[in-house]
Structures are given as structure tokens and as C-alpha cells.
């Protein structure tokens, strides 16, 4: 809890994108990703335009390209899957550099790579410009069930605490000369996981009692109601509307 309350992916800033109300940003990102996914994969240029749109947002938010590209690495496991596609898919085949590749598979790989990368980039931009607390408030504004938002907020708040607890247990194990090297040591690790569960659950009970003693009755009061003006909405929705125009062009051309 002593650490900062901002998550690692958040970049402090005061750009126009940072200042937008969170629920408008969430709506914009969801709409943008939905538009990207429903674009026909044959319209390659459309994906280029989407990337340009995202780059413009990143520039407005003053998020450096290096930061964005580093965060895109999370996609790597699925890139491996996409690379396999041209080899295993069926259909007519083409010769590329002496390799026989499936045309369908190539299109499929391109489809996953382009749409997946754009989706990841959009989420990274959202996480980089929105604080956790604001994100949860935005979800609540978007009419997610309050109980779900509460659970998510407890998970986020105590996630670091529990992870730290796990780290301390690891240090305790190491300082007693334990090093997990193989399957034989799973018992010890599983006992740690069990202890971690008990500690988390008991912490939940303590948190609940502490909340009850402060008058909790099952719902958290909303003290900072976020509202968005028409201008802010239109500013946030500029991204998905531009994307929608590109998408429609992609379908008609």
C-alpha cells in the first residue's frame, strides 16, 4: 500500500486525452475495437489508416512511441500462432521464398496480426492515459453492475498487497535455502499458494469488518460523480467515428 496508487502502465500527464472523462474514453476504445474487428481483411489500407489514427491519439496524449511498442510485446504468443497459420491452413497454395503457403492461412495470419495489434495498441493507450480509480468510475458510469465494479476495485486495490505478500513468501523460502527446481518442489509452492489463499480470504474478512464498522451496508457511496459534456463526448468519439468512416469505405471499395 506504501507504493504509489497509480499502476505501472499509467503515464502521468495532462494532455487533452488524459483530461477526457473516463467513460467517454472507455466507450470510444470499445467502439474503435469493434469497428476494427468488423473491417474486411482484404482492405489492407484501412488498417494502415487505423494505425495512423491511433498514432495521432498517442501524439495528442504525449505517449512516446517506444513505450507503446514495448507494451505491444504482450501479443507475442499469438504472433507465434499467426505465423503457423499459413503452414497448416487449407486451400490454394502459393510459393513464397520456396515455401508452400496457404493463401487462406496468409490472409488469416494478417487478419489476426493487424486486428490484434490495433486492439492491443488501443487498450495500451487507454491504460496509459487513465488512472485506475477513474477507469473503475468509468465502468460504473457505463452501467456495469455496481457489485461487479466493487469486486474489481477491491481486486485492483489489494492486487499489489497480495502480490507483495507472495513476494515476501518467496523471499522467506529463498532465505531458508529453498530453490524450486522441478516437479519435486511443487508441494512447497502449492503450500505457499494455499497459505496465500487463507491470508487473502482472512484479509477480505478483516476488510469487510473494517468497512462495516464505518457504516458499510453493501453499496459504496459515489462521491465523485463524473459527467461528460457534449464537447467531451464528441471529442472522445471522434476516434471511432473516423474509424467507422474508414470501415465503411473498406466495405464499399
Amino acid at each position, binding site marked *: 500500500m506504501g507504493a504509489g496508487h497509480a*499502476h505501472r502502465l499509467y503515464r502521468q500527464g495532462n494532455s487533452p486525452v488524459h483530461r477526457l472523462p473516463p467513460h467517454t474514453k472507455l466507450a470510444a*476504445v*470499445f467502439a474503435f*475495437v*469493434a469497428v476494427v*474487428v*468488423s473491417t474486411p481483411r482484404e482492405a489492407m489500407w484501412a488498417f494502415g489508416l487505423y494505425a495512423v489514427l491511433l498514432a495521432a491519439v498517442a501524439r495528442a496524449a504525449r505517449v512516446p512511441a517506444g513505450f507503446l511498442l514495448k*507494451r505491444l510485446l*504482450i501479443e507475442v504468443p*499469438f504472433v507465434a500462432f499467426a505465423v503457423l*497459420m499459413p503452414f*497448416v*491452413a*487449407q*486451400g490454394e497454395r502459393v510459393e513464397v521464398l520456396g515455401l508452400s503457403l496457404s493463401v487462406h*492461412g496468409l*490472409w488469416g495470419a494478417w*487478419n*489476426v496480426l493487424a486486428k*490484434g495489434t*490495433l*486492439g*492491443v495498441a488501443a*487498450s*495500451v493507450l487507454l*491504460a496509459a492515459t487513465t488512472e485506475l480509480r477513474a477507469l473503475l468510475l468509468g465502468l460504473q458510469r457505463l452501467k456495469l*453492475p455496481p457489485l*461487479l465494479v*466493487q*469486486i*474489481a*476495485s*477491491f*481486486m485492483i486495490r489489494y492486487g499489489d498487497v*497480495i*502480490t507483495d505478500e507472495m513476494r515476501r513468501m518467496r523471499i522467506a523460502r529463498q532465505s531458508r535455502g529453498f530453490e*524450486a*527446481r*522441478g*516437479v519435486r518442489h*511443487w*508441494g512447497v*509452492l*502449492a*503450500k*505457499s*499458494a*494455499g*497459505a496465500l*489463499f*487463507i491470508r*487473502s*480470504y482472512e*484479509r*477480505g*474478512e478483516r*476488510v*469487510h469488518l473494517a*468497512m462495516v464498522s464505518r457504516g458499510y*451496508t453493501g453499496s459504496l457511496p459515489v462521491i465523485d460523480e463524473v459527467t461528460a459534456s457534449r464537447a467531451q463526448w464528441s471529442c472522445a468519439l471522434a476516434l471511432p467515428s473516423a474509424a467507422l468512416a474508414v470501415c465503411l469505405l473498406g466495405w464499399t471499395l
Partner: protein
Amino acid sequence: MHVPDGFINAPTSAVTGVVAAGAIAVSLRGARHELGGERTAPLAGLVAAFIFAVQMLNFPVAAGTSGHLLGGALAAILVGPFTGVLCVSVVLLMQGLLFADGGLTALGVNITDMAIVTTVVAYAVFRGLVTVLPRSRRSVTAASFVAALLSVPAAALAFTALYGIGGTTDVPIGKVATAMVGVHLLIGIGEAVITALTVGAVLAVRPDLVYGARGLTRKLKLRVNGELVDAPAVQPVTVPATTRSPRKLWITGLVTSLVLAGIVSFYASASPDGLEKVAADQGIDKKAEEHAAAGSPLADYGVEDVGDARLSGGLAGVIGVGATVVAGSTVFWVVRRRRTRDVSPASTSTGL
């Protein structure tokens, strides 16, 4: 196994999104019963944080490779199926929003696959085994081993099915299924060992916390003059029993299914489903004989003698929903009657 955007097509993603939203709504209701009213939010939140953390705990396998827990089965057994679905879903939602792990449009696919299928399969297997096996801690551990073992390939199969319905590349579904299930059988063994060990560790310290082992608690015995006597039953503290009528839920469910079957099915894809397509591609369906019910009035999801294809499909859907509801309610009713008859003095006197 987090599915990115663009991997599954838009209609399938939308449908799985609806499925996920429905399951979460049901779980929110169920979790209140499992955890107890207002305690739900902090407890479920902390359990979700636990799942999130335990997914980062690395279990070394051999030669530098390591695996980690997926946690669906563990959550279902430790805190109950509804809370389990809820916790894993919240973890997936946050991973999608914050860490860009798993696409936002694929959120429905991910939740359906990793939160719902894993947890429900694991808990169903677990419950089944626990009722069959003798009542002991060891059988709870054994049941959690099998439950976790089966839950991972089940999720892989569910993913393959979703891929077959809405995959954006036509990789032959047989190959996908073989690869996915093969790999996930191995992962399932690891998951099973870790889950069983973890459940065993919790059982040894706080058996009262393990939801799946609630039946194991023994009655309190008092030693009176050297003899063991059952302690007098403690009057339960007045629990505000929220016996809300399930009628509203029933009616909502029924109306939703009728609307889906009768109206939304107009717009469903007319192209053959994945399995039929594979069958057609491979020429399997040439051998397939017409189903025995092919001549029935509802064959091929249409009503005979109704000309308009849409109307016919919609009618067939509505009739189908009605028949399913009647059949399901009958089974449910019979089971419930049998269960209430079972609670005779003979069966209760065995004690827990």
C-alpha cells in the same frame, strides 16, 4: 490462452458477449448466497486478487520451462462455482483493460471459455465425485485433482468449438482440436497436481474455508460423564433469509429465450455451422444418413407447411424453447420430489 481481437469473427464475439453477461448476472446473484450478502464485494475482490497473484506463481517443470496455474478449478472448489466465475471474469476484464492481455471484443470469448467453461466443468466433476467417494479429506483432494485435470481440456474444446463457429481462418477444425486438446491435456496434468496440492494445503489448515468440503464438518460432540454425546443444536442466528421469488428470473429467462429463438434467429447465419462445413469439405456428410427425425414437423429448424422461411424458422425456435422448458422443468421437478422424499429420518440420522 487469452484470445486477441480479430481471432473470432464479430457475430460470434457478440453472442459470446451476451452469454458472458448473462452468466455474470447469474453469478452475481449466486455469489451473494455463497459468500453472504454484503460480504460479497470485499471477499470476492480479495479472492480475485489471489487468483491474479497466483497466476504469477511459477511452477518449474524441467530444464528451464515453467508453468503457472489458470485458477478456474481452484477458485470453484475453494469459494464455490458462482464466486469462481465472478472472480475469474473480473481478473480477465482487468487484464483486458489494463494489461491489454486478451482483446476487448474477444472479452466475451475469453470469459465464456476460461471463466465459465473451466469453472462449471470443474465444479460439476468435483461435486459428482465428492458425492460418490467416501466423505474424507483425501477424496476431496482426489476430486479436485480430477476436476482440474478435466477442466483444462474442456476449455480447450470449448475454444475449438468457438473457433469452428466463428474462426477467421479455415484451419481444419480437426487439426485445431487435436493440437489444442493435446497441449492442454499436458497443461491439465500440471493444473491438476497444483490444484490438488493447494486444496490439500488449505484443507489441512482451514477446512472451513474450502467451499467444496463444507459437507465434511462433523457435528460437535460433548463428553458428558465419559461418554460422547451430540451437542445440542445451536439455534441459528436469525439470518435475514432473502427468499426472493425466483419467478422474476424464470420469466426473464423464458422471455429472453423466446425472443432469441423467435426473432433473433431470423438474422442468424444461414451458412452451415463449422462441423457441417468440415463434414461437407471432407465429404463426410455424403455418408451421413438423414436423421431419423428428418421427416418430423420441425425438421431442419423450420415448421412444415409454413412458406415464409423466416416465420418458419422463428416458429420452430419458439416451439423448441417451449419443448425444452417443459422437458427441463419435468426433470427438475422429478429430481426435487425425489430429493425431498429422501430427507427422511433414516437418511438424516447418519449425521455429517
